[in-house]
């Protein structure tokens, strides 16, 4: 975690075009006096290690600095944008599990069946498709041509109620989850296929248990555990995808925030969101660890 903060700090400080020149740009001319005072204000006269230590100290009390543009605290800005990104990412995870697990089971129970081959083909295509390509394609079909769903925007619950929110989120969710669905299908498929060859399943089947029951009772449990773990580890990927998806659908989340921040050279915002993204990734992998422990009694933390 310490190294994460160091990397986030370095990302912004070591790159050319520092905050002061960006600020000065907006100001009338480049008065050396003002430049100097700003450098002092930002502490750019001090060595890197000192600045990093000070930044860390402020970070420890939740102070991520202020946006160069809005002058509002970075933390407040991020918190205000967080719900949208959480809804987007969490929805995509849910969708990927809900769609991916049944499809994976379907393919895995009968490897090399037509259904399995079709799914493998689709999966290969899915992995190779850039997410923005898919997103714009979905908009083209469902929003522009068919007119079923809106092509952009976000409605929070208080604004539009549940149905409006879901209508606006459906395409973003689909876009973001596509690559994950493919991953889940692959994983469940190989897990199921492996289990189906094992003795206890053969025994169960031989005893005359219907396939569906065998699947539910034995296979699913063994397959689900790694899927959930890997989902936790995939949160970083999803956050990456969320940046692109938020830009496509104009969602007021952290993705649009950071793209705006980067393009406008708002360094504190960029730093803050990148750090938040890394933190979320780490947190998700911890959650995955804990879930893994809960689901698989063999793993114990002591």
């Amino acid at each position: 975690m310490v190294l994460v903060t160091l990397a986030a700090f370095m990302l912004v400080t070591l790159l050319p075009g520092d905050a002061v020149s960006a600020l000065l740009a907006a100001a009338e001319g480049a008065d050396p006096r003002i430049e100097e005072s700003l450098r002092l204000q930002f502490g750019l006269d001090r060595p890197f290690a000192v600045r990093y230590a000070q930044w860390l100290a402020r970070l420890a009390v939740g102070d991520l600095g202020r946006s160069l543009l809005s002058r509002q605290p970075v933390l407040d800005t991020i918190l205000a944008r967080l719900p949208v990104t959480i809804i987007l990412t969490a929805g995509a995870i849910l969708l990927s599990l809900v769609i991916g697990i049944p499809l994976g089971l379907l393919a895995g129970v009968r490897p090399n069946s037509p259904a399995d081959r079709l799914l493998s083909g689709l999966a290969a295509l899915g992995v190779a498709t850039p997410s923005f390509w898919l997103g714009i394609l979905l908009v083209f079909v469902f929003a522009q041509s068919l007119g079923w769903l809106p092509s952009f925007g976000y409605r929070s619950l208080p604004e539009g109620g549940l149905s409006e929110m879901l209508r606006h989120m459906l395409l973003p969710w689909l876009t973001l989850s596509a690559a994950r669905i493919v991953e889940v299908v692959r994983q469940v498929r190989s897990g199921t296929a492996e289990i189906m060859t094992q003795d206890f399943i053969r025994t169960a089947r031989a005893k005359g248990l219907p396939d569906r029951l065998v699947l539910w009772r034995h296979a699913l449990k063994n397959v689900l555990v790694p899927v959930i773990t890997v989902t936790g580890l995939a949160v970083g990927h999803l956050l990456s995808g969320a940046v692109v998806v938020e830009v496509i659908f104009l969602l007021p989340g952290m993705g649009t925030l950071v793209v705006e921040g980067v393009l406008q050279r708002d360094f504190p915002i960029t730093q803050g969101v990148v750090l938040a993204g890394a933190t979320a990734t780490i947190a998700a992998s911890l959650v995955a660890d804990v879930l893994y422990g809960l689901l698989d009694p063999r793993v114990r933390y002591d």
Partner: protein
Amino acid sequence: MTDYPSDRPSTLRRRFLRTRTGPLFGGLLTLIVAAAILAPQLAPHDPVRQYLDRTLAPPGAGFPLGTDDLGRDLLSRLLYGGRVTLLAAFVSVGVATLVGLPVGMVSGMLGGQGDVWIMHAINALLSFPSVLLAFAISALIGPSLAVVVLAISIVFAPRMARFARGQTLVVRETPFMEAARAAGASQGRLIFRHVLPNITAPVLVEASLGVGYAALIEASISFLGAGIQPPRSSWGLMIKEGFGYMDSAPWVAIAPGAAILLLTLSVNLLGDAMRDVFDPKVRL
């Protein structure tokens, strides 16, 4: 990966040819790469030349894939854009491998505290969302091909390092290594003579999968506006530019879209095939 020493090349070739996808997508990838390398010879036009009286011409004589909104020949742009996309993907994965592989091997062989710290650093870097990191680096330094390559390399190097370390750990525990160590081989010798040859195959597979992913990252940061800048072009940028014409002149977006799809598809499936070849037991 525990069968050591490795299979003989002739066996591998036979296995590779037995996979159905291997030769097919290997050939396809070779074609794509050759087309990009030979772009100056193959391209019928200068890729940035605007034929202002032939804007948005559909595919046909003179312009095999049609022209874009500024009247530039799409086939030529596709060939030259492919150079950029392929260069960005292959070079960045290459750089990442050159950096990540030694770090991973050293970390794996070192063990103990050194290994722990290197892994901490790698995990820290890995916790940054990849597209976000590449986009931020590229946009903040100022977009150019070199910067895009740098950004993607930074995203990939830790991935490769972690992978190489994992493979090294497996090899380290083999009886053969124990024997070499007992015979008094130095760490350097162990790494170069024994570890490296044994993890080359899986690292190659990982790298080939990485190329597809790198191409997608390049496309994504182009889409976000921090990739290659016009009038140069890459496939990602061409897709972005073409999307506006989906209903009126779909060929502008379809050609680069298909190109990137074929590229990622072929490296991914080739990677899968190679994995099957090197490690037949995993195949289902």
